[in-house]
């Protein structure tokens, strides 16, 4: 295991240079003694080479896309072009302050304006706010818009948001965060929203419905229009979780099929690398009459000039970010859309869907695939239930063994409605050979379950560390290094 950077500290070593201060004023003249720090800040003192070696050493213990395949369901771990990173590092973007005069940021505003327009076009919505910086942040924003809509109409009796039991964990958490109550309904035997259960739970208190489409089983919710009709009949709004938008880009526009509000995950679908957990972006698209509730400003254009448009600020529900969201992430989405063009966009979705169906087909004899009778969209859910029943091997063990084969594990134990779930999403960027190799590895693991179950129970064996004890981490909480 790597030493911590604190164990590499050597008093007096320096990893920086700064110019000599050409202003002579003592600290005491600036900051009253009472407000001066009593004990020095204890940060490591190391050289630049020490720093580079340290973080390079850490980096080698990570999986990443350039190293290998990530079949992570609902995470869309596609390869993201490097040109994005080069172009976004332009001084004319990096070193812009958000409070500069509009005349000095026309290029930045043009990018944001165009991105608003392009995202609205491909989703079928009227306008888009780029302020939310993550998927869950988008959900929060979307639900606040819903609330503003109901407040505006005097719908004070609207208190409940309905969502299916296949929903991402962020959905119910977002519902709570805005002060709504969650009502969970059951999926039917086909893995889709149970219409009867939905009808039984819809009433005058229903503020809206949240749905991921395709859903987390990788299935397109074919009854979405009927669902929308039911929800709209009580003046509820339809929210689409766009986590799986990669499956339908260029094929379907959610804004034209019953949805009123939708978030995009730019870090999944639109070529921003995941970054080990961000930064991403979660823009929100809405239908025409909801634009007035969006966070201000939007980006406007008058004649040839772009501007921060605050005209709807009075009706807006408020702000969700200090400034205008994750500008650098938005630039990457802009570049990606400009490079794909209309045909490329559609091709992304098509190949994502083909890749997923290909793996599903090839694994159907080796793993229980509960919804294999239907074609999937960009992902599918397999189950480790055969392996559990016959050999006592848990899905967690299978996932850890997959790490040994040089892949990241699929999303496991989610969605909650499938026992021993393994959610597999290959994305369009992976080649047939990669998929074939992965399929072979999965088949080999299925055989190992029969022949060498100990390999799975002890897995992983080839990773930088062996199986990590997360219960010990809770029992003996250690969240900072003592030095």
């Amino acid at each position: 295991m790597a030493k911590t950077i604190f164990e590499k500290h050597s008093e007096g070593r320096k990893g920086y240079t700064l110019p000599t201060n050409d202003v002579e004023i003592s600290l005491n003249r600036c900051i009253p003694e009472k407000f001066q720090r009593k004990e020095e800040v204890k940060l490591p003192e190391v050289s630049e080479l020490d720093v580079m070696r340290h973080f390079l050493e850490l980096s080698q213990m990570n999986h990443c896309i350039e190293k290998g395949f990530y079949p992570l369901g609902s995470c869309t771990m596609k390869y993201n072009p490097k040109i994005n990173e080069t172009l976004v590092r332009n001084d004319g973007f990096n070193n812009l302050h958000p409070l500069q005069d509009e005349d000095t940021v026309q290029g930045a505003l043009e990018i944001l304006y165009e991105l608003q327009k392009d995202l609205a076009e491909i989703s079928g919505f009227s306008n888009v706010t780029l302020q939310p910086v993550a998927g869950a942040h988008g959900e929060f924003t979307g639900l606040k818009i819903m609330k503003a809509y109901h407040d505006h109409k005097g719908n004070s009796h609207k208190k409940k948001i309905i969502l299916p039991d296949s929903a991402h964990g962020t959905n119910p958490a977002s519902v709570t965060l805005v002060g709504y109550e969650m009502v969970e309904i059951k999926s039917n035997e086909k893995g889709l929203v149970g219409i009867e259960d939905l009808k039984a739970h819809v009433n005058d208190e229903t503020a809206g419905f949240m749905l991921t489409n395709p859903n987390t089983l990788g299935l397109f919710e074919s009854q979405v229009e009927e669902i929308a009709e039911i929800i709209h009949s009580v003046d509820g709004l339809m929210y689409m979780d766009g986590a799986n938008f990669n499956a339908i880009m260029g094929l379907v526009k959610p804004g034209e099929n019953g949805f009123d509000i939708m978030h995009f995950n730019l870090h999944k679908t639109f070529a921003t690398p995941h970054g080990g957990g961000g930064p991403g972006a979660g823009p929100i698209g809405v239908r025409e009459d909801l634009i007035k509730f969006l966070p201000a400003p939007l980006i406007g254009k008058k004649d040839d000039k772009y501007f921060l448009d605050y005209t709807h600020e009075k009706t807006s529900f408020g702000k969700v970010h200090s400034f205008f969201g994750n500008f650098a992430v938005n630039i990457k989405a802009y570049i990606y859309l400009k490079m794909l063009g209309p045909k490329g966009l559609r091709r992304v979705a098509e190949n994502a869907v083909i890749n997923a169906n290909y793996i599903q087909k090839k694994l159907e004899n080796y793993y229980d695939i509960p919804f294999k009778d239907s074609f999937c969209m960009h992902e599918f859910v397999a189950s480790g239930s055969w392996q559990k029943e016959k050999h006592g091997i848990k899905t967690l063990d299978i996932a850890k063994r997959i790490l040994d084969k040089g892949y990241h594990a699929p999303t496991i134990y989610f969605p909650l409605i499938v026992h021993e779930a393994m959610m597999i999403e290959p994305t369009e960027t992976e080649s047939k050979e990669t998929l074939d190799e992965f399929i072979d590895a999965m088949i080999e693991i299925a055989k190992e379950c029969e022949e060498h179950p100990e390999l799975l129970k002890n897995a992983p064996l080839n990773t930088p560390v062996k199986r990590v004890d997360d219960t010990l981490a809770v029992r003996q909480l250690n969240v900072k290094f003592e030095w």
Partner: protein
Amino acid sequence: MPFISNTDKERKEMLAAIGVKKFEDLLINIPQKFLLEEDCCLDEPHSELEITRKISELAAKNISTTKANSFLGGGIYDHFIPAAVDHIILRPEFHSAYTPYQAEVSQGTLQYIYEYQTMICELTGMEISNAGMYDGASAAAEAILMATRKNKNFKAVIAGTLNPNYLEVIKSYTVGVGIELVLIPAKNGLVDLNALQEAIDDNTSCVLLQTPNFFGNIEDAFAIEEITHSSKKALFINCVDPISLAVMNSPAEYKADIVVGEGQSLGNSQNYGGPLFGFLASSIKLGRSMPGRIVGATLDADGKRAYCLTLQAREQHIRRAKATSNICSNEALCNLAATVYMTLMGKEGLKEVAMQSTTKAHYLAEEINKLAGFSLAFDAAFFKEFAVKTPVSAEEIISRLKAKTIFPGIDLKPFGYDNMLLVAVTEKKRKCDLDELVNSLKEFSR
């Protein structure tokens, strides 16, 4: 087709293996009328060369703070970033890695977050830090939610000297979940202590104080702590500038319970306001009420040191509607940049940055104060940012200095202060840059 590996031939082979003739056969679950007949209306595809040209042209329409002499702050600051920072965050192993749920192949990410948490605890004097929030504003908002969750009081008292953008975000997070916000007015650029004392009662959940505050002024956190804790349950939340902590009191010195702030200054570019990242740290007894990810040290099956996400029972993917927050993705790479930055700078470097920022700010303030018609707006001590009363509107000064590519500061008129400019200084300014601003302000002097 860009970024797609498979050729048409391979695609056909795969469709055949699936058992369909053409792609459209896979879409049987999508109602026919949903399927688009026409392509989306987007620009035709740009090659790498074409998009490079286009982006360069767009970037050239902007005037960066590298080209201008900028004194803009208000939460985002132009501090120096060593080159090594970007080299590390661009490593694919960090850049394209997933959230570290699979600990065995994510030790690199997990360890740097653990080191990040350690450094944030060191800066703030707190005992536990999470892995980061979206920005300073959302960190402040979630700190208030955390306090109400802990003490079941629902009155949040906020010093009116808080960054107004933060206040807007806080409103979004607290309106509708039964939290009452009480805003304490500012008096001479500092929160009014008498009004604060009057607002505190047994129902108070927390007091949120920013220091240095929005005007750059240093609040008397010691006095405000006493007022806060005069109510038995109330928690003291501090919003701080991490750079200031190299020379100013650690919030532990004035007994803060929760500390939040904007982390952009630590190794991250301004990027027109995003991505940013928020830090959030607290006393250990509040740890289980925290939002967001936390990394803990543990052992692997061989008994060797290893790291994993911990206290996950607080989080949305486990607790769903009962989670402490909905946050999932945060701004991890920005936290990595901050970790590398703090490591490179070390204790001496960070102190030097803070020293140069504050001394240069004071030099500039004193020089501007000498100009007829200009004066410092407040008597209070400040760190690296200060408010100036101007003889003409701040808008006019900003507009006229634009031609000289000087960004003299933020117009405080939208926040209710006529003829006032908020000026920020970092270590990147040279004496000649400061003098250039002073000289350019002379034309407004009267």
